[in-house]
């Protein structure tokens, strides 16, 4: 296949060339362990500090409030277990459309005796702040609501939820893995106490992420060992990864605003192109409060995976909204929570655009989708899903 088009930026992104360039020396000459007190160690420590400073400036927070982790999943585990285990018991509030890193962590805490409320969402995938307020109990120890959903891109009303959390003195964790570096995010204005963010969704490397922890938030470490990261996360720091994350954030600070505008236009061009030529399609998620590059589209009467496969064979990468594993299909739990009917949800495909996506790419995807869906529908037995 000659040209490949990648519309799966919510899954992962290529490392920006400038980011990789900045990382390279830290594999080779500057390979020291930041805990070492000699020159090699200090070089590495300085690089870690510089990256932390960069990210702190970007977020408008103190550098010593940032802890590096190995991924968005670890950040979410750390935030939620760290809050819960610091208190030993109590009640947590989250939603049904969180990433599995949050949902499964909360379910695990349930198995350990904590209480968890999983809030419903509306048809756009949005949490109602009033539901959060109603769910707060005397023993509520934390609220975890994501900034934007990775599947449908819906942006949650975090400011309203943050205000409620603050009113009730409940720590508020926001999983911003899909928004950090993509859209503006003011942790102070939004009333956030803990923020998960990650490298590989924003043209940084895989295997590195962070958790911002507002000073004063009672949180215990969940990975035990040496005294790294101010005793909050044991383990030798992933220096090249941290350097890469710092640089990725710097690049995002420059590119973010312009790119968001560009992506919204491209995303709408994609949806307009598809809905003009393919009958029985629907766009999932919120019409305006949505990630710039994300278009989650249901193609009724076709199965997600066959579209992904058909496009893949044309060199186009998109992501299936439903996953068939070992012969049992799972329509996306996010779409189910939004009340999307199953015969639609089975045909959900996520197109997520990124910094290298062009109008030509989008047009080519439309040209690819139209005959594919037609053919798949033609082969379909009448009266089936």
């Amino acid at each position, binding site marked *: 296949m000659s040209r490949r088009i990648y519309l799966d930026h919510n899954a992962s992104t290529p490392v920006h060339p400038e980011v990789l360039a900045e990382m390279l020396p830290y594999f080779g000459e500057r390979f020291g362990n930041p805990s070492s007190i000699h020159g090699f160690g200090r070089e590495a420590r300085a690089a870690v500090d510089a990256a932390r400073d960069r990210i702190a400036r970007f977020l408008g927070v103190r550098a010593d409030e940032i802890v590096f982790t190995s991924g968005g999943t670890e950040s979410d585990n750390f935030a939620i277990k760290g809050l819960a285990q610091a208190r030993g018991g109590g009640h947590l509030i989250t939603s049904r459309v969180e990433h599995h890193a949050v949902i499964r962590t909360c379910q695990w805490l349930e198995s350990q005796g904590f209480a968890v409320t999983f809030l419903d969402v509306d048809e756009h995938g949005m949490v109602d702040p009033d539901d959060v307020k109603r769910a707060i109990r005397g023993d509520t120890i934390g609220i975890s609501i994501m900034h934007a959903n990775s599947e449908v891109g819906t942006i949650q009303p975090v400011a309203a939820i943050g205000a409620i959390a603050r009113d009730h003195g409940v720590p508020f964790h926001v999983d911003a893995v899909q928004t950090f570096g993509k859209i503006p995010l003011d942790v102070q204005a939004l009333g956030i106490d803990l923020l998960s963010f990650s490298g590989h969704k924003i043209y940084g490397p895989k295997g590195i992420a962070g958790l911002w922890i507002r000073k004063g938030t009672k949180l215990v470490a969940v990975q035990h060992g040496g005294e790294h990261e101010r005793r909050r996360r044991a383990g030798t720091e992933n220096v090249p990864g941290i350097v890469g994350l710092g640089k990725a954030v710097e690049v995002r600070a420059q590119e973010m605003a312009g790119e968001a505008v560009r992506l919204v236009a491209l995303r709408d061009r994609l949806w307009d192109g598809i809905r003009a030529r393919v009958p029985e399609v629907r766009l999932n998620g919120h019409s305006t409060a949505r990630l710039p590059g994300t278009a989650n589209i249901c193609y009724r*009467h*076709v*199965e997600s*995976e*066959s579209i992904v*496969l*058909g496009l893949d*064979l044309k060199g186009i990468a998109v992501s299936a909204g439903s996953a*068939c*594993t*070992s*012969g*049992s*299909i799972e329509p996306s739990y996010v779409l189910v929570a939004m009340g999307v009917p199953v015969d639609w949800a*089975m045909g959900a495909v996520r197109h997520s655009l990124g910094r290298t996506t062009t109008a030509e790419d989008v047009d080519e995807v439309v040209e690819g989708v139209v005959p594919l869906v037609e*053919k*798949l529908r*033609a*082969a*379909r*037995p*009448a009266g*089936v*899903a």
Partner: protein
Amino acid sequence: MRYSATLLDHFLHPRHAGLMREPDGVGSEEFEGCGDLARIFLRVRDGRADEVRFQAYGCGPTIAAASVTSERATGRRVEDLVNVKAEEIEAALDGLPEDRRHAATVAAGALRAAALDALDRRGGAR
């Protein structure tokens, strides 16, 4: 690629896809787990499947399996078609990943149902 070139070819260029009007036999099979479904239509002449068509809904392998099944069934004796096994379909696709075996099962099941239907109708006609 987790799918064979043969499978992908059948998925991209399905043989004999589409409805058959007034078939001599028709049968479907659905896979409970994921709702994947295949339907096979037979036109019978001199006890053989003179023409075979299929419809399918599901993941790529299911569509490919139905396609290769319709191809392999063409020209064979209807009695034989009752006994076509999922293994034969899987082999004809040059293999299936573990978690997609159901595609062959669904296609073979539909063919068997269609063949039984054709035999039934012939019996009924007598």
